[in-house]
């Protein structure tokens, strides 16, 4: 076999192999945008291989007719190679003004069609004679005498556009700082196109006697491109390894935190999850888990909430946090905390929602238990408060009973008179009714305070709540000789709170104030209650002129802190926990005129029912 045949066949085979590899890469990951560069390369390599085969045959053409026929076919791989260069530059280098390249392809297509239709030898109007020229010690056939066709102008213009497109791409890459690729790939392509065009023009116009050896110029470029693409593949493999490693680390961390990881492509429905995530969701391990499958395990009460978040995740990127219940296959209910994020996936049009899921049943249970304990403790404190107030409370019930009894006996005596005074009797009955209602209100309040139950929030007018508490304690205050002054300026401003709990706070603060004033014989004992509105905050202060703070202002809120011999030391601690549960603050400070001021800050309720 001649050297020339060996070389040409070797180059063609090399191109075929390289093209085959990248065609395979493209086929495997057709949907990914990045593999379009592999496709463009494969087309270019196959075209070059084809060119090599045809060139070899052209070297051995026996007649002008055979040469013309081969030349006709030769121009197809040239066309596809041309298009592939534009596509590769666009997809792989992401450079060059696409309209330049596309116009070049269009012009080349017109030239191809025109050349084929004119029945001539493509760029030649007529081939007059073929001759042989020595190439690597071997005589090869080439055109020695011919007249150029007008089609040549078209194909040369297309080449010029391609050169412009590549020059533009090189400039862009250079500017982007991607100088190595600018020089090697697009610069190389430009050089090839320039040299090839110059040689083609020279030989066509007879300045140079060269056979068709396009493959020689193409192959180095193909190799450079293959090297870059190969490096990318290698880097991809390395990245994959890194990714796997990082995934392993992530899984390890997730397992250590007892968290499950999962991701779901909302478009393709592809699901991936760690074994822990499958266990938490309590769904069988399989790949085709749909959004509906996941929703199905969620507690019906929470499903709507989760669905809304998923719906939003399909549309826009973002991070979401959710806590919801899962009903497992055994019928048990578990609380999970989920943190998810949504983003556009690597494949065009895909939508990935991925997340971390944790079983927080234990935490929830602890929270519930804490809440229950708080309720119990508040109840205990209320009972204790009522015990302290028992004397007053007995009086509060006794008083109406006394009123009822004396009125009734007065009425009986009036009725025994010969001409009873009906107006007086009516007044007596009205007083009896009023006393009865008063006793009923006291009993009702007692029952509410003794009830052990969950917090029930409602809209409360602060000033009215304060007045109600003062009314409840009026007997106690009178008995202890305390003079009450009020300066209630909150008006109709409301808070969103639990009536019983807030009563408890008020009763506690008023009681403490009375105790502080009883401890020393201050005279007169003045209790001042003030409310005020400051922006969106309602302020309530309870001032006394008693003994004042004996310890630090914060210390008094500590549990089991008490100055009273029979005190539990829970009153203020619980008052504070109630106020905090109402998003408020409680603080104590010395009253400038002697005594203590306890102050509450509570957020004002702006919209009803929120």
């Amino acid at each position, binding site marked *: 076999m001649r050297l020339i045949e060996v070389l040409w066949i070797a180059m063609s085979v090399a191109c075929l192999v390289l093209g085959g590899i990248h065609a395979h890469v493209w086929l495997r990951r057709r949907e990914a945008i990045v593999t379009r560069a592999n496709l463009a390369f494969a087309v270019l390599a196959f075209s070059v291989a084809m060119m090599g085969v045809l060139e070899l045959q052209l070297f051995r053409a026996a007649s002008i007719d055979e040469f013309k026929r081969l030349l006709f076919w030769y121009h197809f791989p040239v066309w596809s190679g041309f298009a592939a260069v534009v596509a590769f530059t666009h997809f792989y280098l992401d450079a060059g003004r696409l309209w330049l390249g596309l116009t070049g392809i269009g012009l080349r297509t017109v030239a191809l069609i025109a050349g084929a239709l004119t029945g001539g030898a493509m760029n030649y109007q007529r081939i007059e004679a073929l001759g042989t020229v020595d190439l690597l010690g071997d005589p090869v056939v080439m055109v020695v005498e011919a007249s150029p066709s007008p089609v040549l102008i078209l194909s040369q213009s297309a080449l010029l556009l391609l050169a412009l497109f590549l020059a533009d791409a090189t400039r862009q890459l250079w500017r982007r700082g991607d100088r190595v690729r600018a020089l090697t790939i697009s610069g190389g392509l430009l050089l090839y196109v320039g040299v090839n065009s110059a040689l083609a023009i020279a030989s066509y116009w007879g300045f140079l006697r060269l056979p068709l050896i396009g493959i020689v110029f193409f192959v180095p470029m193909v190799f450079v491109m293959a090297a870059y693409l190969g490096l990318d593949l290698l880097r991809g493999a390395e990245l994959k390894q890194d990714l796997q490693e990082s995934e392993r680390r992530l899984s390890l961390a997730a397992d250590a935190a007892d968290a499950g990881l999962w991701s779901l492509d909302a478009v393709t429905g592809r699901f991936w999850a760690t074994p822990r995530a499958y266990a938490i969701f309590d769904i069988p391990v399989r790949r085709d888990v749909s959004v509906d499958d996941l929703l199905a395990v969620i507690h019906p009460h929470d499903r709507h909430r989760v669905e809304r978040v998923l719906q939003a995740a399909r549309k826009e990127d973002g991070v979401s946090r959710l806590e919801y219940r899962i009903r497992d296959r055994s019928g048990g209910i578990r609380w999970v905390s989920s943190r998810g994020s949504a983003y556009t996936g690597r494949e065009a049009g895909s939508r990935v929602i991925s997340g971390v899921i944790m079983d927080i049943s234990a935490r929830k249970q602890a929270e519930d238990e804490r809440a229950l304990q708080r309720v119990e403790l508040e109840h205990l404190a209320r009972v204790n408060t009522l015990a302290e107030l028992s004397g007053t409370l007995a009086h509060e019930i006794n008083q109406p009973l006394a009123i009822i*009894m004396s009125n009734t006996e007065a009425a009986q*005596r009036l009725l025994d008179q010969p001409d009873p005074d009906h107006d007086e009797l009516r007044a007596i009955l009205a007083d009896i009714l009023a006393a009865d209602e008063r006793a009923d209100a006291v009993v009702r309040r007692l029952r509410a305070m003794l009830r052990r139950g969950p917090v029930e929030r409602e809209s409360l007018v602060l000033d009215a709540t304060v007045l109600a508490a003062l009314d409840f304690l009026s007997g106690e205050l009178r008995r202890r000789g305390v003079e009450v002054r009020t300066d209630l300026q909150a008006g109709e401003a409301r808070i969103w709170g639990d009536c019983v709990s807030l009563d408890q706070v008020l009763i506690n603060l008023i009681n403490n104030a009375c105790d502080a004033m009883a401890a020393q014989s201050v005279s007169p004992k003045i209790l001042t209650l003030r409310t005020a509105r400051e922006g969106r905050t309602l302020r309530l202060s309870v001032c006394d002129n008693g003994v004042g703070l004996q310890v630090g202002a914060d210390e008094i809120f500590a549990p089991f802190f008490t100055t009273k011999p029979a005190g539990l030391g829970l009153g203020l601690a619980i008052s504070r926990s109630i106020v905090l549960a109402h998003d408020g603050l409680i603080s104590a400070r010395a009253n400038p005129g002697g005594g203590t001021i306890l102050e509450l800050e509570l957020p004002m309720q702006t919209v009803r029912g929120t």
Partner: protein
Amino acid sequence: MSNKVYLVDDEPDLRRAIERLLRAEGFKVESHGSALEFLARLPAEADGCVVMDLAMPGLDGLDAQDRLLAASTRWPVVFLTGHGDIRSSVRAMKAGAVDFLTKPVKAEELIASVGLGLARVREVADLRARYAQLTPREREVMEHVIAGRLNKVIAAELGTTEQTIKVHRSRVMEKLGIRSVAALVTAAQRLGVSPAGGEAD
């Protein structure tokens, strides 16, 4: 015949109820919302029974009783209380209260106590009328007698004979309707008559 009741209670509803009850029983009732108000309008002579709440703002019942004692005549006091403790009741009774009743009070109990108080008022009024009939000399002798002095000592003090003192003394007893010295001492206390020159040695 006095049938006046002074009712002192800070709670208007209860005050009104008891006032009605007492009126229906035929008493004349004068109500006061506080002890201070009552003391400010206190008549010179005890002419009725006081029915008073124990726990009141300002001046409480027991302190009011002390002030009443300081007044020239002794007022009969019936205490009403919501939650009476033993200490207050002992103090009140020692100070001469007629009764110590807990609310809610039965009408019969209240009326009986008020009756008792009014009887005392009447006794004092009667005693006072009798005392008015004594001559200055007889009053002088009475003051010496309740001081615990013997007739002989009194005679020496007043510069007269023992016999004369004996006559005066029996006149005093007769006019006041009293048989024993002990009763005379009590009557003197009720009348607000103090012994002459302090107690006898």
